[in-house]
């Protein structure tokens, strides 16, 4: 059996997200091979009932976005799809910036966003990790659940992603320069 099939089997069995690192440990192959295997699996799952979701270093299986209606009907519980204006703004920042601190969100929105951000964390739409550059603050990222709700298999599939992500990063970098000047 080839590597691609092994990755598929692990993801199916686990039924939850698995990191690239974990896969290379289980299968005892290097990071490059794993990445290639993931790419192949992603391609072979095109136009199938199951899709491969990639969120940076974690991957997972899910049902194809086109089958949303079918599975939704199957699931009896009502899915809550209502989001406030503030939530939508924050989600758009988290998705398009892909890794953003609360200070950056506040800066872009001009208001304190901690309350809404907490609500979104509780709903499982955003997840926070400690910033590698500064461990006193958190970085907010889209969760698999958020990607699932958006019907995209990775952030790059969002409309105008590359263009917006680029201009946002430039703008935020300018901001970093300014805040540093203020501190000095």
């Amino acid at each position, binding site marked *: 059996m080839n590597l691609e099939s092994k990755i598929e089997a692990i993801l*199916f069995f686990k*039924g*939850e997200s698995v990191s690239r690192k974990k896969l290379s440990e289980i299968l005892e192959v290097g990071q490059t091979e794993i990445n290639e295997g993931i790419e192949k699996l992603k391609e072979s799952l095109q136009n199938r009932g199951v*899709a491969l*979701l990639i969120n940076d270093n974690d991957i*997972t*299986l*899910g*049902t*194809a*976005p*086109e089958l*949303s209606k079918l*599975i*939704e009907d199957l*699931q009896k519980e009502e*899915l809550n*799809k209502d*989001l406030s*204006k*503030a939530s*939508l*703004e924050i*989600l*758009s*920042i988290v*998705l*398009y910036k892909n890794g953003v601190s609360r200070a950056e969100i506040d*800066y*872009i*929105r*001009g*208001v*304190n966003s901690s309350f809404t951000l907490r609500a979104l964390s509780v709903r499982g739409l955003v997840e926070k990790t400690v910033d590698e550059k500064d461990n006193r603050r958190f970085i907010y990222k889209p969760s*698999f*659940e958020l*990607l*699932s*709700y*958006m*019907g995209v*298999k990775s952030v790059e599939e*969002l*409309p105008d992603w590359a263009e*917006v992500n680029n*201009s*946002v990063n430039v*703008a935020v970098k*300018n901001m970093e320069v*300014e805040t540093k000047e203020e501190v000095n």
Partner: protein
Amino acid sequence: METDTYQIKTSGFEGPFGLLLNLVEKRKLHINDVSLAQVTEDYLQYINKLGGLSPAEISSFVLVASTLLLIKSKSLLPNLDLTSEEEGDIRDLEERLRLYEIFTKLSGNIKNNFGKKIIFAPLERKLRAWGHITLIFLPDAQITRESMMTFARGALDGMPKKVFLPKVEVKTVISIEEMIDKLTERIKDSLKMNFKDFHGHNGGVTTREEKVVVIVGFLAMLELVRQGMINAMQEYDGGDIIIEKQEVI
């Protein structure tokens, strides 16, 4: 002076950017110093009516208002020299507003797509239902009745104590209203005066507080000119401003 003022129907803007963007878009303008100067008056009118917000929320509105007043003053008086810090504030506001505009458009996108084509994750396996897996509590050797009490005491002692910080009242340096009253009063006294006498720093303005007093004083003077209560004239560029009480006809 703008004759057409816009009525804002949506009562709640969470922050200053939402309000400002709304005002600019209503006039079908792009974000730049000219459009911002045009909407300053509507913006100030709106924040005058703000109520029920926390001081932190109001302060974010006021902070933006101060930059808008700067833009407005510059548009009325092209000769007004701005410090590099002030110019930075203006550029910063424009850039942030543009960035915010991008995200408000994107959030519309998200609203349209959210929950439309959901990718469902596999359901969690119900381990208990398989019968042979049950969760149990396995205490290790360290956990005894005595040691648990010691741990509990340690945890209780380690609880942070509530610290009461002394409250400090924040003093207002001077408000525009006070300055307007002061100006009206002094003009009544001496029908004609100059701006330097009025702000009282004839020898030159150096400290930050003195600058603030002069700026607020200048804005107050502009407001009185607008209300038609006084006339102001400047004989030469950079010269002193002579303030006169408007003759009542």
